[in-house]
């Protein structure tokens, strides 16, 4: 909910905005943990902040974040990317094949290549031919799933693949591991954080659980993703390439008037977008049984898109959005998920109560009313049910997105020229 720093009402220097944003992000994270630990104590949902839950959440957040950052490159360059899902699917089949043939590192490369091909195909339709971005992106999703199934049939039904465990719906397992790392002393060795977590103290143990979840058995692909995402912040905001990319998404005719090729920027943006989505597909492959499985992306491309929207088209926002989704899914996948989700609903209710109070103080009554209504519903749900049904757990990220978008719609600011096909010389 760090939207305010992203859309400042008065111009502030970039540096000031950045440090203000960082402080706020830290404050909000700590606040969120505090909020959840209160809810945990009241509702006895002890797994809410356990390191296992957080660890799972982290692993689930990574592909969403990768898809979201992929979407960011596309949309910052001016192309709406509804095709993330299809590109991730191409990534999974590419990773499955390359990984089976050459091991885990090749799986990463195969995933990226698969995604890039999908990205370039979309960019061919939108940038070269000026097709409506949503229509074309939608077509890419259909093609992505079709091509993946076809390739699976061709690649994984041979005798050789069959002997290795492949079938029409899944690739042979990828042998080997990229490795995983734990931070010594804190999460490993003496495991100080683990000790603290076990104490069950208010807030302190929660923080320890969260930190341990983030530092214990971190997979290599998670680290790769993190480096790439943080690198993206630099690339998009501090390099000439990034500036040109953003100009193509904000005011393409201005870019063209200065001799910057909008088409080139949008093709490159889309290729990078596909690459990130494909990498996300590869990570999904590793998150399961280390093999391609049909339909295993299961809507995470769309979740990436949602993270992009609620992250207000900013990398840090995308990360925060993915973290929220990943955490919700991590809670849903934890033991006693019904109880944990009930605890989470209480946290949401308390959080919304605080937001409502803030909105009232600032005189934003519509916002306050919406927040109060949703908060009251959450509270009612908490009081009414003993354990939350799994289907509701499943829809949590989507409802979160809907509520978020509804509350903050007026303050979200997508790139100005996003979604508008641009043909050379069109508006000079």
């Amino acid at each position, binding site marked *: 909910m760090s939207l305010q720093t992203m859309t400042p009402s*008065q*111009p502030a*220097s*970039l540096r000031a905005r950045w440090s203000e944003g960082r402080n706020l992000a830290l404050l909000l994270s700590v606040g969120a943990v505090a909020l959840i630990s209160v809810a945990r104590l009241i509702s006895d949902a002890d797994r809410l902040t356990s390191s296992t839950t957080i660890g799972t959440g982290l692993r689930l957040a990574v592909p969403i974040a990768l898809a979201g950052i992929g979407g960011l490159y596309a949309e910052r360059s001016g192309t709406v990317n509804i095709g993330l899902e299809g590109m991730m699917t191409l990534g999974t089949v590419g990773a499955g094949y390359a990984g089976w043939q050459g091991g885990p590192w090749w799986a990463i490369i195969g995933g990226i290549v698969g995604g890039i091909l999908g990205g370039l195909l979309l960019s061919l339709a939108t940038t070269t031919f000026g097709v409506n971005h949503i229509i074309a992106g939608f077509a890419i999703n259909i093609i992505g799933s079709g091509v993946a199934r076809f390739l699976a049939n061709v690649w994984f039904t041979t005798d050789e693949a069959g002997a290795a465990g492949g079938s029409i719906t899944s690739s042979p397992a990828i042998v080997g591991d990229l490795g995983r790392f734990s931070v010594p002393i804190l999460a490993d060795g003496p495991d100080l954080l683990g000790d603290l977590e076990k104490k069950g103290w208010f807030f302190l143990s929660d923080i320890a659980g969260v930190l341990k979840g983030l530092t214990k058995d971190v997979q290599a692909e998670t680290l790769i993703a993190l480096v790439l995402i943080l690198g993206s912040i630099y690339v998009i905001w*501090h*390099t*000439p*390439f990034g*500036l*040109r990319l*953003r*100009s193509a998404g*904000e*005011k393409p*005719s*201005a*870019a*063209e*008037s*200065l*001799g*910057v*090729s909008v088409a080139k920027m949008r093709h490159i943006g889309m290729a990078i977008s596909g690459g990130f989505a494909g990498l996300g597909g590869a990570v999904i492959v590793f998150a399961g049984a280390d093999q391609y499985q049909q339909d295993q992306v299961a809507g995470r491309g769309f979740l990436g898109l949602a993270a992009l929207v609620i992250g207000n088209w900013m990398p840090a926002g995308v990360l925060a959005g993915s973290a929220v989704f990943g955490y919700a899914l991590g809670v849903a996948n934890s033991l006693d998920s019904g109880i944990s989700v009930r605890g989470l609903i209480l946290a949401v209710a308390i959080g919304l109560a605080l937001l409502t109070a803030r909105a009232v103080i600032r005189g934003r009554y519509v916002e306050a009313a919406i927040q109060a209504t949703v908060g009251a519903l959450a509270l009612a749900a908490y009081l009414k049910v003993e354990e939350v049904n799994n289907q509701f757990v499943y829809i949590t990220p989507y409802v979160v997105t809907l509520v978020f978008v509804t509350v903050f719609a007026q303050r979200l*600011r997508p*790139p*100005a020229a996003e979604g508008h096909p641009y043909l050379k*010389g069109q*508006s*000079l």
Partner: protein
Amino acid sequence: MTNTAVASAVAIELRDIVKRFPGVVANDGVDLTVRTGSIHAIVGENGAGKSTLMKTLYGAHRPDEGTIRVNGAEQSFRSPRDAIAVGIGMVFQHFQLADNLTVWENIVLGDEPGSWYRIGAKHARTKLRELGVRYGLEVDPDALVADLGVGQKQRVEILKVLFRGARIIILDEPTAVLVPQEVDELFKSLAELTAGGATAIFISHKLDEVLAHADAITVIRAGKTVGEVPDPSKVNSHDLAELMVGSELPSPETRESTVTTDVALEITGLSVATPGQAHKLALDNINITIHRGEIVGIAGVEGNGQAELVEAILGLEPIASGAIELFGHDITKASTGDRRHAGIGYIPEDRQKDGMVLSFPLWENCALGHQRQEPYGDGRWIDRAASLARTEQIIREFDVRTPSSDVPALTLSGGNQQKLIVGREMTSSPKVLIASHPTRGIDVGAQAAIWEVMRLARSMGLGVLLISADLEELIGLSDTLHVIYDGRINATLVPAAVTPKILGTYMTGSARTDDPNLTATAAAAAAAAANGADHG
């Protein structure tokens, strides 16, 4: 004001430039010679091909025929990059600025001073401050462009050109959006530049301005060069006008008054809030009465509430307070559809955006806005045959040049599109006509035709509200003239007693009269001031 140091070197030489677009030859053998170190004006009426020529010179598109020489060397530009490389820069009519980027980001885009891995922000800021001080173009490099005013945005555009070290600067209608003080500042900066050996080319159709500031003038008509004026002091605006349109400019004079005492449209105490800023009023307590047979003109610098006034009358946006009555009926709460149905005709400022559906055939465009009424339909169904018949009638009576009534509207020229819109409004038995910049961007012929229609509307007993930036048009056509400034009516004038100069002083808010009785004295004072400035 003119630069007396005339250098003999030639900066730009264009020969026989031909540029064709589908269905139009925009430039048909244009010649242009610009001396180094001069301020060179290019004049011509709308659609003459001035902007097309400048885009060719800037490499935004390639000419079909002809040669371009810059400082004596022949050039073939494939993109603006090539033009930038030989020192040409262009300030576009519609600002080419990304709102959500900072000033310095907009300026360095494409020529970042750093290396591939960093933009070089520090260097950019320093250089911008230097340039700003040197040419009187100071802007905060770290401000977001969205937060700048029009004048500042233009500074950023010029800085963009200077940052690239351009020695030849093209400005496409740079003064169209500026208030007089800003115009003066602009030409001061340009004089500064040309004194240092740079060359400036600007497009305009404000002839007074051209005569005051240009060292040389080229006149373009219908895609051809029709006149070269090496010494502007030897011509007057009348000569220039004749060169521009091939004959005398039509004049918007009205004949004898047809104003009645019946009130057609009455606006009382109208206030409108600024979107997003609840406490700032875009319109503040506006009172306007339009009688049958009267044209009420609204003068004002753009963005002072004209658009909001139109929206309020048509019911397009909510109002804060006030009342609007149409022939005694309160329509303050009526929907846009009901108001149009009740007889409010509308000629929008931007016809392609608000007045037409370009991909629809002409007959559907004629039905637009009148789809609930005869002959276009009965409110539930659309009557195709009757709509077609009415469209044929409009095409005939209003001289819309088109092969048929079934072609898409995008195939019409701007003037013919406007005639179609005027025709459909006039044939739908309106009681009040709201005309917003009705002759903007169209050729002289269509302009004269539309003035004729306005006079006709007046003599038919309609109440007409005319909003325009063309002061001659306002003074010539209006029976009553209000000046709007900062959301208020700050002067009500008798058109016969004012000149564009006087109107200008009211429009910038430097003079005001809320009491019509004071008009005569205030106008006289303003006139004296304006005359004084003229002789000085």
